[in-house]
Structure formats: C-alpha cells, structure tokens
C-alpha cells in the first residue's frame, strides 16, 4: 500500500471539514431535515426520542387554566444524579408551536424517589408565559411533593443556609413560601437560589435559579431593593409553572 504523505493525510481530514463548516453553517443539513410539527403544545423526552408526535400533545384544562399532560412514570428514563447514585433523575421538555413562534423549555428534571408510588407524572404548561430556553411556564406534580425533602431558599439573606430557608405550602395561593421579617437591607442586589433542603444542595439537578433547573455554581436568582432599610421579604415558588419570585415591604 502506498503510504500517504503527512500533507495529504492532513488535507484529507481538513478539506471535508472546511467544506462542511462553510456550507454547513450557511445551509445546514439539519435545516434541510428539519421536522415540521403541527401547531400545539407537546411534551418530549426519551420515550419519543425527543421528537414530538400527535400522542404527546398536551390538552387544555379549564380547571387548571393551563395545558396538562399525564405521563406514565414508566415512560421516563431515569439516570443517577451527578450528585450521587441514591437520586434518580429523568428529564422532559415542553415544546410550544404556534404559527411562526416556537418555544422550547429547558430540560426539566424529575426526581424519581420523590414521587413515591405515583404511576403518573402530571405536567403543566402555560405557553403565554413560557420563555424559550427556560423552565418558566412549565412544571409538574413531582415539584409539588415534599415527602423526602422540602423546598428551601438559600442566599445572601441567610448565608446560603438552606435549613434556615425552608418553605411552607400556601394552599390558597398554591405556592411555597419563605418569609424573612425585619431584614436589614444594606445593598442593592441580593443573590439567592431554590433547592431541596438539608444543606447538601442535592440532588443538584433540582437547584433552580428562576430560569433553569440544574443551576450550577454562580447561577443564581437575584432581587434588588430600592434603598437601604428594614424590609419584610417574601419568597414564593410556584411548582406548577416554575415561577420563583420575591416581594418586599419596607418598614
């Protein structure tokens, strides 16, 4: 066999790459292959190969005032959490398509052990408040459960101590609440994050910065105070639609 020179070997590799790179970015073969889905709200995950089909369409529920989908827990593929083998995490995404507008939620984690004996996961979505690439507007029944670990707020307001920031369920407003009374506001901006309690911040995938779950180091939510002073702070988390918010009253 004739031995190829170094230059030829290299150009054999480089040439197709340059061609792919230039033509690929301009008219990508993925764009040619692009799947057209009919208008609607869909749930995708491993069970449908992340490609929406008619049977993955969410239906509108007047009682919930949202789109709802019941997913059998057996359909979800769970893998061990990066935070430890004792937690199993599965993912789904919600896709909203209406005319020219497509919104795809970020990957939303589901913690298997927290669901106990549930055979179905109920997924909720409000497309009008969905933000492309974010979890806002989408949530599920697993997020409502606190059998194994509570939801907690950790932040600069409590030295990132989750055990101090345990949230309680407010059944009237359907949100988890954590209140801080007489907080001495000494600067404008405060960082915080939502997690499951016991100060281990585990499973890491459930940490939420108000935009995406699995929020890592330095990815925090924040709120700003208009001026220095004493405030009553109220943190709320809406598990059905992943809405994290802070309200304050100056004293």
């Amino acid at each position, binding site marked *: 066999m004739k031995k190829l020179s*170094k230059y030829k*070997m*290299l150009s054999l*590799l*480089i040439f*197709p*790459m340059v061609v*792919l*790179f230039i033509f*690929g*970015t301009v008219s*990508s*073969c*993925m*764009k040619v*292959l*692009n*799947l057209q*889905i009919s208008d609607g709200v869909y749930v*995708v995950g*491993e069970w449908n*190969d*992340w*490609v929406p089909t008619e049977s993955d369409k969410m239906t509108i529920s007047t009682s919930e005032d949202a789109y709802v989908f019941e997913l059998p827990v057996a359909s979800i593929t769970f893998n*061990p959490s*990066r*935070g*430890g*083998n*004792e937690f199993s995490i599965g*993912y789904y*995404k919600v*896709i909203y*398509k209406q005319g020219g507008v*497509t919104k*795809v939620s*970020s*990957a939303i984690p589901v913690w298997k052990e927290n669901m106990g004996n549930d055979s179905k996961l109920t997924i909720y979505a409000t497309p009008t408040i969905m933000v492309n*690439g974010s979890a806002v507007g989408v949530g599920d029944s697993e997020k409502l459960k606190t059998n194994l670990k509570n939801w907690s707020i950790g932040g600069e307001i409590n*030295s990132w101590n989750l055990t101090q920031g345990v949230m309680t369920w407010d059944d009237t407003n359907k949100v988890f609440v954590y209140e801080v009374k007489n907080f001495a506001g000494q600067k404008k*901006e405060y*960082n915080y994050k939502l997690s499951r309690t016991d100060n*281990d*911040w585990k499973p890491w995938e459930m940490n939420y910065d108000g935009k*995406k779950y*699995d929020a*890592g180091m330095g990815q925090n939510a*924040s709120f*700003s105070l208009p001026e220095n002073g004493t405030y009553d702070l109220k943190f709320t988390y809406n598990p059905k639609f992943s809405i994290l918010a802070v309200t304050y009253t100056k004293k």
Partner: protein
Amino acid sequence: MRNQKLNLTFLILISFTVTSLFAFQSNFSAGFSLQYDFSNEQSIASLSTEFRMNHSVFGKDFDLSLSMKNADLESAKLSLKLFGITTNLYKNVLFIKTTDPVILYKVDSGRDGMDIQLSNIKVLFSGDVMYVDTKLTFVQRIGFIVGKRSGKFDAAIYGLQKFGGLNVNYELIQQDLTKFDIKNSVGMVSVAEGNYNWGVRYLLAGATNTTLALSPQYISNQNIVSAWYKFGSQPAFSTYVNTNFSFEKFSDDALKNTEVGMDINYSGAFVNLKKTGFADVTGAMPTEWGKFNVSLGTTFSFMNFSGKFAYSFGKPAHNVVNTIGEVYYVELGRSFGNMNLFGKYQKIIGYYEEKDFFFGELKFTGFQNADFAIQLGNGDFAGDNPFKPVVAFKINAWW
C-alpha cells in the same frame, strides 16, 4: 452608571495597592471579579472577591491554606507532620476518595473532617463517613478498606498482580456487612497489557439493581464489560467496546447497551466515531440510526492566530440538545506582546432547537504580580449557556 464606574475605579485602585505593597512575598493570592449582566432590562452588577493563602506558610512541617470568598471563609486545610505521621484538618474541602480501582467512597462536595496518614495507611473521619484504607506492599500490592457510612459498614479488598507483562487488577466489595446480602456484593477484574495499550475489564454485581452508595462507579447492570485496543502513533488509533447486560436478558441487553467507538488522532487533527446501541437502528437515513456521533476537528494556525475547529453530527447532538443535530465549533487566539486575545463560538442545530454560544476574553499579563482580564459571555459550552451579554472584569494578584 456613575456608580458602576466608581466600582471599577475602586477595583483597579485596590489591585494596584495590593500588588505594589506585597511585591516581594509570594504566598498569597487574591482574585476580584466584577460582573455586569446586560441580559435583563436593568443591568445587574455583582462583585466577588477571593483571597487565598497557600503553600508552606509556617514552615516545612506545618501547612495552612485557606480561601476567603466575599469575606466568608470558603475552605481551609491545616496540615501537621510529626514523626512521619501527617494529620490533616479540613473545612469545606473535597478530600474523601478511596484509592481502590472501583473507588468505594468518593464525595464530590466540600466536607469538614480530618485524616491521618502513615506510609501505607490512611484513617479518615468526616461526619457520618469514616474509613481505613491500607496497603500491604511487601507481599504483592494488596489493599484493604473498611468503612462506615451513616450506620452501615462496608469492606473492600483490592490489588494489582503482574503476570508475564500483564497487569491484573482486581477488587471485591461487600456493602452493609452486618446484614449480608448478595445484592450488596461487587467484584471486578481487569487484565491489561503492561502499558495499558489493550485490556479487558469485567464488573459483576450481585443483582441487577445493585448500587454502590457512595461511589462514582454507577452499576448500570449486573455485568459490565469494557475492552479497548490502541495502536499506531501517526495516526494514533484507539478503539473500544463497552457493554452491560443481565444474565436473563443477555442478547436484548447487549444489543441495546453496546457502545463501540474509534478515535483517530493525527498531529492536531482528530476523528471520533461512536455508536451506542444497535436495537434502535431502523433504516439508512441518519434519523433512523439511533444514538451515534461522528465528530472531526483540527487545530490550525494562520497569520499568528492559533485556533481549532470542530464539527459533530449525531444523536444526541449535545448535552443540552437531545435530538439528532449538529454542532459547529471554532476558536481563535492570538497574543500581542502582553495582551492575549481569545474567542470561541459554537452553534448547535437540532430538530427544533438552535443555540448560539460565544465567549471572548482579552487578557493583560504584563504586570509583575497580577493579570487582568475582560470577558464577554459564558465559557462553559458543555452546559446550557447560550450567549448572553454578560461582561466580567477579573483581576488576579499574587505576592
């Protein structure tokens, strides 16, 4: 805006004072980072500072290192050496990791605790985790671990034996010793060529749902087999097969879980091919290939720029795009004396998702005890970090 300018001036002033005052010592370092996030309607500014004390601050037998973040103690390690015994005290440090091949215990978050080390024995205590890891080097290389984690006792025996140029690694683990159950047993043996150019590794778990509670080794099935073979140097080839199966569903599992791949490297250029699972291949179109990945790339240089580009096509397209798709990546860097310019860009095109990533950095290294960098965007392209207008000013100083 005025406030932000003041902040920056203040930051630069501090750094110059700090660097000039301590220019003749060399065991401390500090980092300042001021970040502006312009992606929200109101730009958000955040400042963080770090202070580290490193190396043998107090002499040969007494080490203290600590780091502060925003005026809070972030982590600390105190080391004492006496009569050949090292005692370490830790505050919020990653330090739990056993030395066996399977790795019985490993904790990936900062913990408080202590360990004591003699030449071949290590005793560690940290909250509900404690263990003794010891090696007998005088016979053959055999090691024992006895550990306790939240009320349960575990043990492991492991070793390395050399047979005519072959390395044989083995390990036996029994978890929860007081309540013996075959489900909690794990065995591993690997046979490899002396330089590990080829080898086979086999792990057998007691049951299909066996787990190692505090280990990075995930037991995906009862039998886990991997084999590898490397050959050539110009180009260098590396091939591998990984699979896992249970005894009852051997052929189903093997068809579904087998992963084969080949990596080729040739002076800065690379081609990686990988196919995961064969049960989901339904046709000739890429959309019918199931899970696969083809990636190629090369480093290059032109006009004093050095760079890299890469392309990959596969399913999943990326960590954060699960459908079939492609990823384009290019990076470029150049230094102008003491100024370094670096930029990288990535585009992911999935079935219905498209994400653009960009990161740029301008770094000044001309100072005697400091460097200064201006960064734009988030540099972690493996995570879900599409480009956002975030600008960070970073100063590192040491003295």
